[in-house]
């Protein structure tokens, strides 16, 4: 408790001097690293100071009354109850302040809405509960899921400094380029936010919202989903890595190559062991948050897979549910989210893990044929 008492003291100190900033006791917004975020920061500080000044005046008069006009100090009450001039003044003056405030706000907003002349287009899709980044012009895309382990979340091991704010594959943008973001979602509404960019926009299923950013400093920037999107809303961070242009180009080339390799893998003949190994990973990133790592699910919303009739017997049905989803429920269509290899691997895994042991196996080729049968 003594530590906290000390912290409370620091807190009070902090309140007295708002400019003071401490690592753990951050009091104010960060100015960020983009033009937009700097504009927002200055708007924020202006309006904050206006509020502080008005507050000081109004509360000043009030406290003066509280201390000086007490009955206990023998005051007799005055009897005035209106004054047209004063009343008009304190209607007009705030109005003028607001107009003054509205001008820079309007300018910033107009700038934020200008998504023209972007150099890079990235389609950002929110899923329950991870993000997908599609580099539209380069024709590759990938998922970005939180990499903080359950052990950290459930306090079984210590928490790393980027607790809840780390992902497996961050979004990568080139420094200095105008990046246009096309935001959408696959299931429910999500919201993509990186505080340091001053960019927050909702990702709405079935619609695309546009926004943009230009990051001037290389670095890793972290944010989170800010629209309640279900149980793991708190566990879908946004991580963006801003790199110099040449490094970016190299990364893009690497990604394209990787995508090509994945396509080739579909053709390859897979063994049971290979599929199980890959399936376990895919399951952990795509399925485990609902159906649980041990396949026990959390009924009724998320049925158990372990011992499930469909998983044990009905291969066609199983494939259909995974590829096309179940409309009207939380089961998404994974046909567009996972490639054929992952689909085959995960289905094989589900049919053989946790004592299901059906011995069934489905290959990427079969999945490909299923998806393209019409």
């Amino acid at each position: 408790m003594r530590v906290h008492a000390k912290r409370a003291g620091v807190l009070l100190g902090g309140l007295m001097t708002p400019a003071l900033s401490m690592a753990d006791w951050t009091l104010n917004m960060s100015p960020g690293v983009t033009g937009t975020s700097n504009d927002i920061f200055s708007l924020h500080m202006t309006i904050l100071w206006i509020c502080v000044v008005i507050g000081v005046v109004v509360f000043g008069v009030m406290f003066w009354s509280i201390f000086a006009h007490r009955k206990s100090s023998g005051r007799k009450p005055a009897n005035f109850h209106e004054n047209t001039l004063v009343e008009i003044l304190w209607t007009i003056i705030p109005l003028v302040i607001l107009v003054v405030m509205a001008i820079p706000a309007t300018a910033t907003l107009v700038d934020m809405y200008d998504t023209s002349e972007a150099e890079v287009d990235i389609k950002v899709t929110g899923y329950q509960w991870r993000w997908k980044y599609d580099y539209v012009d380069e024709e590759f895309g990938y998922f970005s899921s939180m990499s903080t382990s359950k052990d950290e979340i459930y306090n079984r091991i210590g928490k790393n400094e980027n607790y809840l704010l780390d992902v497996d594959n961050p979004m990568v943008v080139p420094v200095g380029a105008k990046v246009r973001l096309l935001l959408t979602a696959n299931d429910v509404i999500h919201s993509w936010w990186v505080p340091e960019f001053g960019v927050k926009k909702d990702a709405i299923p079935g619609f695309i919202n546009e926004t943009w950013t230009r990051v001037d400093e290389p670095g890793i920037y972290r944010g989170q989903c800010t629209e309640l999107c279900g149980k793991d809303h708190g566990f879908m961070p946004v991580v963006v890595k801003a790199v110099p242009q040449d490094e970016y180009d190299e990364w893009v080339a690497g990604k394209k190559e990787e995508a090509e390799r994945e396509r080739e893998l579909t053709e390859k003949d897979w063994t049971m062991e290979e599929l199980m190994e890959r399936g376990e990973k895919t399951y952990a990133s795509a399925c485990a948050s609902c159906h649980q790592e041990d396949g026990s699910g959390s009924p009724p919303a998320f049925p158990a897979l372990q011992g499930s009739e469909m998983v044990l017997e009905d291969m066609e049905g199983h494939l259909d549910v995974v590829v096309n989803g179940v409309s009207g429920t939380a089961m998404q269509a994974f046909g567009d989210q996972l490639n054929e290899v992952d689909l085959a691997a995960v289905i094989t895994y589900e049919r053989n893990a946790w004592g299901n042991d059906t011995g069934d196996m489905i290959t990427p080729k079969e999945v490909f044929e299923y998806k393209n049968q019409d």
Partner: protein
Amino acid sequence: MAENQTYYVPEQSKWPIVATVGLGVMLYGVAAIMVNGKEGNSTTGSWIMFWVGSAIMVYMLFGWFGNVIKESRSGLYSPQMDRSFRWGMSWFIFSEVMFFAAFFGALFYARVFAIPWLGGEGDRGSSNMLWEGFQATWPLINTPDPDSYPAPEGVIGPWGLPLINTILLVTSSFTVTVAHHALKENNRQKVKTWLTATIALALVFVCVQGYEYVHAYRDLGLTLESGIYGSTFFMLTGFHGAHVILGTLMLFIMLLRIRKGHFTADNHFGFEAAAWYWHFVDVVWLGLFVFVYVI
């Protein structure tokens, strides 16, 4: 000194608590029917709840209104009381207007914003990327995802049955006004005639609307599931139809009361309330006719 007559404050009454139990049981039943139905469970118990609740509600309505009528006829109500009823009814109708406003708002939003955006126009036009091949039209004869929401083959044009329905309802508003004037002149035979005519027009309206629904479902494939056009069409006309039926019931009860000799030339607020409600239903229809069918 009618103004200063004492305001009638009723004694204890069992009706509010009966109404609470009735409404609660009825709506819990409805919700249970839907949830159990969707989950594939038995809905028998839920239906029983629904019917029991409904029966309590009917009992309550007869009892409560019966009380009010009895009090009114025994002269307990002052002109001030009458004004309370008038304020009450007017604001109730205003709340109904706002209920319809929500659905009209949804229609407006879908037509002016959502559909064009999905079709590639306007500020969020890039949404069309997600729905390749979708064209914005109104009426919506294709939907962004026809697998989930098959589009209708056609919609109901305004100048056939809907026009006839418009004429029916406008005429009924007129006939109910004639009946009201007759009541004020204490010509009770005339009241009965014109009120009966109003109810007849209302019933024809409901039948025509019913026929239209069957036509839409059977021949046009226009259903609740056929996208936002079907959703707004059936919700607006459906809620309106429900209000027509309710209004007709009100008018019918007024007819019964007239036949029993209720109301006088200058004291007939029950009748007026029903007439107000009827005019409201009529005005909503005019809005529907213009915004749902014509434009």
